């Protein structure tokens, strides 16, 4: 109970901040946590280690941008459209890959190839304006999800984060979640107990994809620009993975912790040594440290060691 209170206070504190700069940091951290939690649903709870989650993010981002610039649809409608699109991509990808029995490294590679395929498409097609990308007109307003005061963006991102946390929490206490976790631990045993492996994995990937895609829509509204690399680049995929893995894959709070730690590193290195690549390099080192010494991520370090019976 105390934990929830502390987290709630921390989550709401940016509204009291005077500095737009600090609020922006909070927005970015919360956004990272959201995407990390979205990845966590498939990659953490399901053990479906995806190296190409940007395929969902970019789908949502481009869909949101195109719907706005070409069809004048505001982002409130873009959100459900992106969720549907992301879910569909996840469903199709999952159904194809899991029915073929691919898992582990092969699955990671396929997701990488999928993201790359979409990147090339976005770079070549007219509707996505190729390498030029899409500029979304700046028009601050509630219905546009654009806010002159960054605290508005924070409110939106926070709402999404709460949604993602709720999904993760639901996994922790539902039949679907229990089955997903079971198949992550041991596929044969899960099948022997009646768990439909392909269906469970595919639905998990679809849910993860839907959430990730919604993040894409919000990104475009915050930064007003999307291009193939921003949407589908490897950096995007890796950041989601790193946030979840470093914080603790398969845990509820892991992505939150991971986002705070990674952004803390990014912001402090920017102050100390302002060179591109320093922060991501430290992320890589942190990943190695975590998988070597902290298998449960940072969240796992807080959990007591199980007693031997």
């Amino acid at each position, binding site marked *: 109970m105390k934990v929830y209170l502390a987290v709630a206070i921390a989550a709401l504190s940016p509204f009291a901040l005077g500095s737009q700069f600090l609020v922006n940091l909070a927005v970015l951290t919360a956004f990272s946590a959201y995407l990390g939690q979205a990845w966590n649903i498939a990659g953490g709870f399901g053990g479906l280690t995806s190296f190409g989650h940007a395929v969902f993010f970019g789908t949502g981002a481009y869909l949101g941008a195109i719907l706005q610039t070409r069809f004048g649809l505001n982002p409130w409608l873009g959100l459900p459209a992106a969720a549907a699109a992301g879910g569909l991509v996840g469903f199709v990808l999952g159904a194809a890959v899991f029915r073929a029995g691919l898992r582990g490294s092969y699955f990671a590679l396929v997701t990488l190839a999928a993201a790359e395929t979409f990147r090339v498409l976005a770079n070549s097609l007219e509707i996505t304006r190729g390498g030029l990308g899409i500029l979304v007109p700046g028009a601050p307003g509630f219905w546009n999800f654009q806010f002159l005061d960054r605290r508005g963006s924070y409110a939106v991102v926070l709402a999404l984060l709460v949604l993602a946390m709720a999904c993760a929490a639901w996994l922790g206490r539902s039949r679907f979640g229990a089955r997903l976790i079971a198949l992550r631990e041991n596929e044969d045993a899960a099948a022997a107990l009646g768990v439909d492996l392909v269906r469970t994995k595919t639905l998990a990937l679809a849910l993860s994809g839907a959430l990730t895609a919604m993040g894409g829509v919000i990104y475009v509204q915050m930064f007003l620009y999307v291009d193939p690399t921003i949407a589908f680049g490897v950096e995007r995929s890796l950041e989601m993975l790193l946030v979840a893995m470093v914080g603790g894959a398969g845990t509820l709070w892991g992505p939150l912790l991971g986002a705070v730690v990674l952004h803390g590193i990014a912001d402090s290195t920017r102050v100390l040594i302002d060179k591109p690549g320093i922060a991501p390099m430290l992320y*890589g080192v942190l990943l190695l440290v975590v998988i070597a010494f902290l298998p449960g991520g940072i969240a796992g370090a807080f959990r007591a060691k199980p007693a031997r019976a």
Partner: protein
Amino acid sequence: MPSADIVIAALVNGLLTGGVYALIALGLTLIYGVLHIVNFAHGSLLMVAMYGAWILSAWMDPYVALPLMAAVMFVVGWALYAGVIGRIGRGDDRTILLATLGVAVVLDNLALVVFTGDTRTIETPYSFDMIELGPLLLSTPRVISFGVAMLLACALWAFMALTDTGRAIRAVAKEKEGARLVGIRPARIFALSYGIGIACLGAAACLLLPTFYVSPQVGNVFVLVSFTVVVLGGMGSFPGAVLGGLIIGVTESLGGLFLGESLGQIGISLVFIAVLLFRPAGLFGARA
């Protein structure tokens, strides 16, 4: 519809590039065949090797530097496995996968910090020489690179088939415990095999440098290509890596010709996805 001449030129150029792809893939397939790990750091290590060759190019021609680079990268690979990947891996597939990913991320960004994001190229006296082969006009360095790559592939095959060490490696790949029983130490073989796989990258880097650029992101370009080649050829298969490399080189070349510069790149990822879905064992891989 492009003329036959242009198509043939694209085909041949694709084969030339494919030869170097094959060499890169040989390293990857060796690592998979022996250690059963998918080395995500492969592209990044190629990038490191290319920077190494670029630095050496101040003193020696890349082709001359090849044996040195191969030796250096062997040590780098061996040390990386013995010191980092092997230690962290603990035998769990997902952990090793993430370990190689971690290494890749660190190397990619270390390069960014040290060398900045600028692309670099080198110029050799023969950079723009051409060889005439019938109606075709081929770039000399690319022909040399192809030839050397194929030679190295044969040398590697001979090493694996005819030497004691090569036999030990194949033994560990097939049956680790049995190999241990006859006195072979799997841990040493693992590090050795990883080193050889990375040595291939050292050689490939020298073959690529005369005609390609180097940048911190160049690794990412080759990651998907090398994985596609290995998956197409069959994980762990030598002839598969060579044949796969040539096929992918041609696919890339013809893709660029018929679909244009931008969309042509899609050929490789589509081949990759198609192979994984419909024939995951690849051309020469063992059927599950």
